[in-house]
């Protein structure tokens, strides 16, 4: 069963699944709403590059041999855009065990990263600044690691969606960290 929250943002949907049996699993999903404009524009651009390369190569006036590279370039561009288009990113919290971070692409590819609960020092919400924009992101402070681990690698979801995920991660990390601190003697 899920608790779907949509309409919070024009681009994303937030889904919260909480199962209590057979084992408790707290799943948070952020799905990218399908936009027709971007893939159409990308395909159009890739087709344009390929067409220009084809025309330049086969032109009777002055055939441009180097333009043949435009055809695979256009194909690569189309493949990259389709391959790299993200469908959703998920955070699966298994209390006392760990957190699994998943990135699902439209091509069907899924990248999974597992972080043991004892490894997580603290989940943090932080603002990232680039030369052209600024956005919120959710990261994990890991024990004995200098680098933060981004929870959502590809998606820049809004703060309102990140807050419940952050709270769930904090609760799980506090619980899991408490058990870890007990040590082998109890």
């Amino acid at each position, binding site marked *: 069963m899920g608790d779907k929250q949509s309409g919070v943002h024009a681009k994303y949907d937030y889904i919260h699944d909480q199962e209590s049996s057979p084992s408790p699993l707290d799943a948070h999903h952020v799905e990218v709403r399908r936009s027709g404009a971007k893939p159409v524009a990308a395909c159009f651009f890739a087709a344009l590059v390929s067409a220009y390369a084809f025309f330049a190569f086969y032109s009777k006036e002055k055939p441009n041999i180097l333009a043949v590279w435009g055809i695979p370039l256009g194909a690569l561009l189309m493949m990259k855009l389709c391959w790299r288009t993200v469908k959703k990113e998920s955070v699966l919290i298994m209390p006392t065990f760990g957190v699994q971070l998943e990135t699902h692409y439209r091509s069907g590819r899924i990248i999974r990263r597992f972080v043991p609960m004892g490894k997580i020092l603290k989940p943090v919400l932080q603002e990232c600044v680039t*030369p052209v*924009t600024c956005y919120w992101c959710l990261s994990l402070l890991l024990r004995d690691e200098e680098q933060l681990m981004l929870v959502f690698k590809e998606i820049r979801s809004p703060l309102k969606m990140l807050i419940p995920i952050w709270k769930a991660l904090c609760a799980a990390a506090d619980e899991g960290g408490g058990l870890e601190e007990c040590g082998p003697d109890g």
Partner: protein
Amino acid sequence: MADWRRHRILMVSDFFYPNFGGVESHIYYLSQCLLELGHKVVVMTHAYANRSGVRYMTGGLKVYYIPWKPFLMQNTLPTFYGTLPIIRNILIREKISLVHGHQAFSTLCHEALMHARTMGYKVVFTDHSLYGFADIGSIHMNKVLQFTLADVSQAICVSHTSKENTVLRSSLPPAKVFVIPNAVDTAMFTPAPERLKSDEIVIVVISRLVYRKGADLLVEVIPEVCRLFPQVRFIVGGDGPKRVRLEEMREKHSLQDRVEMLGAVPHARVRSVLISGHIFLNSSLTEAFCIAILEAASCGLLTVSTRVGGVPEVLPDDMVVLAEPDPVDMVRAIKKAIALLPRIDPQEMHARMKKLYDWRDVARRTEIVYDRALKCSNQNLLDRLSRYLSCGSWAGKLFCLVMIIDFLFWCLLKLLQPAADIEEVPDMVQFHHQDEEILMDDSQHQSSR
């Protein structure tokens, strides 16, 4: 109090912490005092080395270190329109009501003010330095300033001399320019607990050792003073290209035991160096204000300074001995200062400085400028373009073209990323207990005030 209005200010400059200087201190202390008055202040500057992103300083002062690397003398590369997306983003997400730029030499400041005016925000500009009129660099800088200030809501200068200089350079109406002097943190700069012995007189110099700060004058003055007054020794703090000349002077006149060169002095150590001396020597060739002599006076030192720029406006006559920027006159002034030393009471001097200069007073006066700026009428692009046209026959048209292109870029940005897609940042309220930091909406904060 009924008319009190909470401002949300964006301070913009290329010069901020972790650098230390007059402009940096001004922005920091002013921001802290404005936060105390209940306003929201956000600072925007460029990244320094590894310091990039968002940082929070004392009092919840939020600083955006934009990852645009400095390219020349700590200034961001001027791109005209490159900073428009990030500035628009920050203005919307922080719900800024007013943009306050600092320093004419800051490219980030000029770009931020230009973009803020395009987007309809009120802007205030503070000029911290004096500039010339004759050399190529000054001519170009003055033209840029004329462009920026053509449409500014209000301007602030740190001295009356600076106001005159700014008005002449930028053709700004004098009625738009306020004079609000800098101040000094008298809690940090306190005199030595015990008065120094007067059998040996120590003269302290702390400045960047560059031409503009009169390092060449020191090369002439120090040997002459050491010759005339065997009981005098110098402590020179600071670094720069002219340090070599001072080292050579020391070797040439065998003054190694009478002239101590400290090198670069961290800001946190400035007070400890000052209180080891009786007299503070400032040899600047140009100064809009000179915070250094305020710091020295707050530590109880008698000041000897060149009579340049806004320096005569800073200290009362009994706390400073002024001289022309000439070695002979400076030696005369030092001689006069040595004679005046027995009459100087450092604690009394510090107490007077506390009353004369206070950053809270600067913040209250700046608040009035902000209120005035926000009362200025809103103007559309066409009305504003007429102000730029008056900047010159060719320059005016060029400025208009720049502003039209900026406006078009802004319209394009609004299409690509509507303001509704930029989520606003909740205000962070700091309590005294460190763990009780919470997020508040602006409405909650208003009602609690």
